């Protein structure tokens, strides 16, 4: 069916249900997750922007929705959010490009 896809935005509401079939591990995950996002040496606001950037590099639509909303709730502006997305994109493309050195090394070794 054309209007169906693997991702349904409504499924995000059910994230908590992952504990249903593995209560212990699921609860441990949520406990860890919630601790990570508490105010710490980094502010919760900074962590939210990091999460948004990672959500994009991981290309997770649920996380993008969740941390866009979280950012708005914290008063983060759309310009700040887009900068965070660029940080993620820059690291991601840098990570691809830096492997170019490996390619260069290999070329030099095989055909230098």
């Amino acid at each position, binding site marked *: 069916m054309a209007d169906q896809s693997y991702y349904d935005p409504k499924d995000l509401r059910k994230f908590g249900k992952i504990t249903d079939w593995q209560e212990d591990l699921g609860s441990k995950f949520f406990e860890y997750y919630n601790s990570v996002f508490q105010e710490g040496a980094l*502010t*919760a606001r900074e962590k939210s922007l990091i999460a948004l950037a990672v959500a994009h590099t991981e290309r997770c639509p649920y996380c993008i929705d969740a941390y866009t*909303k979280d950012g*708005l*709730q*914290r*008063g983060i502006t759309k310009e700040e959010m887009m900068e965070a997305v660029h940080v993620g994109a820059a690291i991601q493309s840098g990570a691809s490009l830096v492997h170019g050195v490996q390619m260069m090394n290999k070329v030099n070794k095989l055909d230098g």
Partner: protein
Amino acid sequence: MKTQSLKKRDSELAQAKRQLEILSNGIFQDGELPTFAEKIAENGHFPLRPRRLEILQINVGYMCNQVCEHCHVDAGPDRKEIMTRETMQQCLDVIKRTGAHTLDLTGGAPEMNPDFRWFVEEAAKAGISDFIVRSNLTIIRANKKYYDLPEFFKKYNIHVVSSMPHWTRGKTDKQRGDGVFDASIEALKMLNAVGYGMPDSPLKLDLVYNPSGAFLPGDQAGLQAHFKKALLEDFGIQFHDLFAITNLPISRFLDYLIASDNYEDYMYALVEAYNPAAVQNVMCTNTLSVSWDGWLYDCDFNQMLGLGVASPVKHISEYQEDLLQDRKIVISQHCYGCTAGAGSSCQGAVV
């Protein structure tokens, strides 16, 4: 940005009955989400009852110089309902009799009521310890006749509580109209100039933040820190506290939620963020709301939904505290807005 109230636009949502139908049906009727009554019953809070009356909130009229996108009052320049001096006198009689320590004047833009200053002068004599006026700020810059409002507020030691949706121009103007940010900044400077909002000043100036879209307010302390830093660095403006309040799904905000296809998600978010600890402190438990025509409500939101108090005493002219205290608070699904996260009241978070 719409420039007319729902009422003027003849929108079906101008009818309180239609809003209540939407809030009662759909996801709540089919059991997908629990109703507010079911939810508070889980913690033994049903029926919700008032504690001691502490705050009398008086809505002196729906007329306003702005037409904010999310206004729960559906206020605007085209709204003509304003409180008469006669009703004000009935309120004054009650103010003198109650033990309420806070008087909270709201609107619309309360300053647009022609008897506003008279009422403030008379009410100030009653010895209230906290006398709040909810000012939208731009009214102070709207017309020369309002330029002296900061001095007037100072004379009566009014506690000024003002809306400020964001520390950036774009977000503020999107929600409240073009030019609102700059006019609000000018008004805040005028208030600071007479001593309002300065760190040790007794002239209290608090700001109210409400989200500019279909999301809940984040942590109040974090938002306050950001507002303080930005307004001080960018404009040299100071204020005391920031109250973060949740937009309740009624009136123009409900209209916006439905039009932007956000209604269901927003209700889910409210229900998911339900915090039982906030229930004991929702503002209807210590507040009574009076409409421009003298009718009594549990809160300003119930007033807009036409949900009068469930008491034999229904009008300010027949006020009897003991009978009113005995009532059950009238609730519906919009009440989830008061209990989400850290809770939300006219004074911001409640837990």
